[in-house]
């Protein structure tokens, strides 16, 4: 499923049938096990097997990347061009991911993500506008 009903959008929020969002809080990005020991699908599960393998390879550099992201300038470079930022800290980006990031930089995702203003009409007639401030963080959340 997808936000705004757009089938091309990424699933930032997996929703179960009760309408409540899941909270996969594992530092590895995999969902935490529930009481029955079953795992909810992680974001990595969205990837094809060969791409998933490369991604797990990239995840080995988690500590390096998280440490680098504590620098706001680096975090901004990561937002603007993740391939260049990863290379900057000496990480060898696996070939399929490298190719995909190069290609997707022309499709409105990493490398092209703009903080687009979004305007809302209020019942009092005001139109307020919010410009999202997006920050790429470490493993989990701000300051991770």
């Amino acid at each position, binding site marked *: 499923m*997808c936000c705004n009903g757009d089938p091309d959008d990424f699933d930032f929020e997996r929703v179960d049938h009760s309408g409540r969002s899941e909270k996969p809080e594992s530092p590895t990005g995999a969902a935490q096990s529930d009481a029955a020991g079953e795992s909810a699908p992680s974001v990595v599960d969205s990837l094809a097997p060969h791409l998933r393998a490369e991604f797990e390879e990239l995840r080995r550099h988690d500590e390096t*990347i998280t440490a680098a992201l504590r620098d706001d300038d680096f975090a901004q470079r990561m937002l603007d061009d993740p391939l260049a930022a990863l290379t900057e800290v000496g990480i060898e980006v696996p070939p399929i991911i490298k190719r995909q990031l190069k290609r997707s930089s022309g499709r409105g995702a*990493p490398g092209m993500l703009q903080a687009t203003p979004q305007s809302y009409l*209020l019942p*009092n*007639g005001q139109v*307020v506008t919010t410009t999202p401030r997006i920050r790429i963080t470490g493993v989990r959340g701000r300051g991770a």
Partner: protein
Amino acid sequence: MTHGYDAVLEISEAAYQKILSAIFDTADFLMDQVLSSLNVQVPPGSGFDVSVSFDRPAGIPANATDVIDVHVTLGANGSIGALHFAAGLAVIRLDNKTEILTIDLRNKLWIAEASIFGIAVPADTVRHTLADDVGVLYVLPLPADQDATAPEAIKEIDVKLIDDTSPQDRDASAVLLTFGGGSAGNRDAFGQSFLSPGGDAGMVISMAWLCRTVSPLIDQALGGTGAFQNCQLTRHIGLPDDVTLTDLTVTLASGALKVHAAVSKSGTCYDATGTVDASIAISVQNGVLKVDPTVGNPVTDVDIPWYCYVVAGLLGAVTGGLFGIIGAVVGSILLPTIMYVTENVMETAVNSAAAAVANAINNAAPAIDLAVPDVKLHAPVGDISFQFSDAFIDDVQVDSRVVPADTIPVHTSGVVTVPNGYTIDFDSGHIGHGEVPSGDLTVRGSGAARKLAPVCGAAFARTPLFAFGELYRAAIYPHHYSTASVPLTALGIPLFGLFIPDFQIVGVRTNENRWGALQVIAADSAGITLRYRVWEKFTPSVRIVGHFSCREDAFSLVGSLSVDTLFTASAALEQAVKASVGELVMARSPEVPTAPSIAQLAATHVTADMTATTASAGKLLAHASAAIKALEPADRRIGAFTRVITQKRVPYARFDARTSGIGVGAHARWEIDGIELVGQNGTITTPTGTHVHFDKWGLSVAVTVESSVAFDMQIAVTVADDRVRTASARQCVHFEPTCVRRVTVIPPFDLYRQKYLETFGTISASAAVGPVIR
């Protein structure tokens, strides 16, 4: 500005002039009773003019406090004489439920002088009359419950006369209010009035009291179980859709109420926070306070773990997902929250706070005996109402107009068209052509050159008054009366054959020596239409005032948080949005829900090209915004939350015999359904079997009935004075055992948000995805 008090009510010198004029005129108290006590007889119906000053007069003792200086000229332009007294204000506690603001003539009379026809009345005589015969003037009764603990109930009242000795001379009388849970402030800190020049009265509500009052309600509405205290959040509160309210504060800054709210929401691959600030302005429309918030642009922060960002990059799917998050955080929670707090909660809270004091004043009808012991002349109690006229925030200031009740019996009144060349007799209401015997006004001339001519000894005076509905007899005394005609053009503007009246009131002395007033409300080529009122002259008359009333909960918030709250969506808002986006219609979507939200209605007008273009998206919002802003502020909200409250009616009523032309020694004989009420109190059984208990004092009677069904009874009174002048009146009184009324309430947040999303929805637009309607 409240100097530690919960609320302060300031009353101007001009308002005191109105109040004292009404007191002096009621039952001809000044011109008949007081002057008679001074052994002075004046022509019946002589007017007077009251002037009040809060400047400390010279020659009074240093320990005299809160002194009001009153000058009264007697007769037209002081033709009869003058009365001057200076006395101290005092608050008297009558019982544990009632206090009353008074002018204490018995204990604090510092100056007492009078002259009649140029001859000074002996000082001892004047002092004896004012201090001993009158004793006290009751200005303003207020309910004040010494044992009150609820923040909406007045606990204590104090008074402070503000004598500003600076060049601005901003004097006022301040009534200092302490509500349940509060404590008295510093009465010595008041140095200058906050009233606007020319203002009648104003009330300032302290931020501390507002917070004390509103915080429990906001907390309850949000399900905070004590998390929201003293206008700020002390711990996070969970909201619908896994959103957390992380901050909510209401503060006073730079003369405005500020509301700050922050929420957070976390999900797979993101942590999002949103914050927004709003500034609240308050205005008065038709006597009702309205809150108008200005909402700042929300700030949204979205944190995305690097690996999620990379995966999203691989899938090329970041932007739309972000808008889903922001929509959930900002559109569905943050904005409804800020609108809820600013528009709904604060408006109801501020309105109720102001109404708490205004209702207390306007409904004050002490059940106890207001007659002062050991006095000969019982002065009428000030009978006034406060009507909101303007509001400011600094703390929260609400200005009021003081409107004395019209206590004098009306002889004739009505609306009449007087044809050109005709004459009206205001004393009888008769109209005739040409010179009518005992007529008062003839319309002379034609067209715009017409004049209202006083005839047969009548006299007119132009006044600066305009509110005919708020007129009382003493208000028309102090003006220059003459037999000169009043040009029609002085009372309005002739324009292209039309006449646009300015509603100026003209004072009238009829040729039968009654006071009256007229107001031109229309004119055409054939005649002039005017409304008029003529008061009874100085002949014995009486009317009964009183009824069984419903208990008004001064604070409409109390007990208001309920799921049975009724919601009425704003039809004007819906129409405005529909009409505005309708201009953009190119094609209608067939998938219109049976009960669409306003946002969905707008969506039916969003055409295919609009979903892809920034210009169209912005156009949609701009059109809808302009249409909404053209509405009255009261309509610029999603709707009204109300509850119908059914209460048992208070089986108590107080009836007063309001007299004119009845002098010293007035006493009353009361009857109910033909049965005389004998003794000071007792119980009677009416012919219909209803038990009625009564308590009598002065010219008043209080009755308590025992009945669970509706019934009518006839109450009658005959009054007489020492000179055996008598008058009688009777009136039918209806009793209904229940009171049904609809009150504005604050709904629980969940309910408000549900109605917000159902009726208004989220209408947003961005350059990336065009209009988004949810």
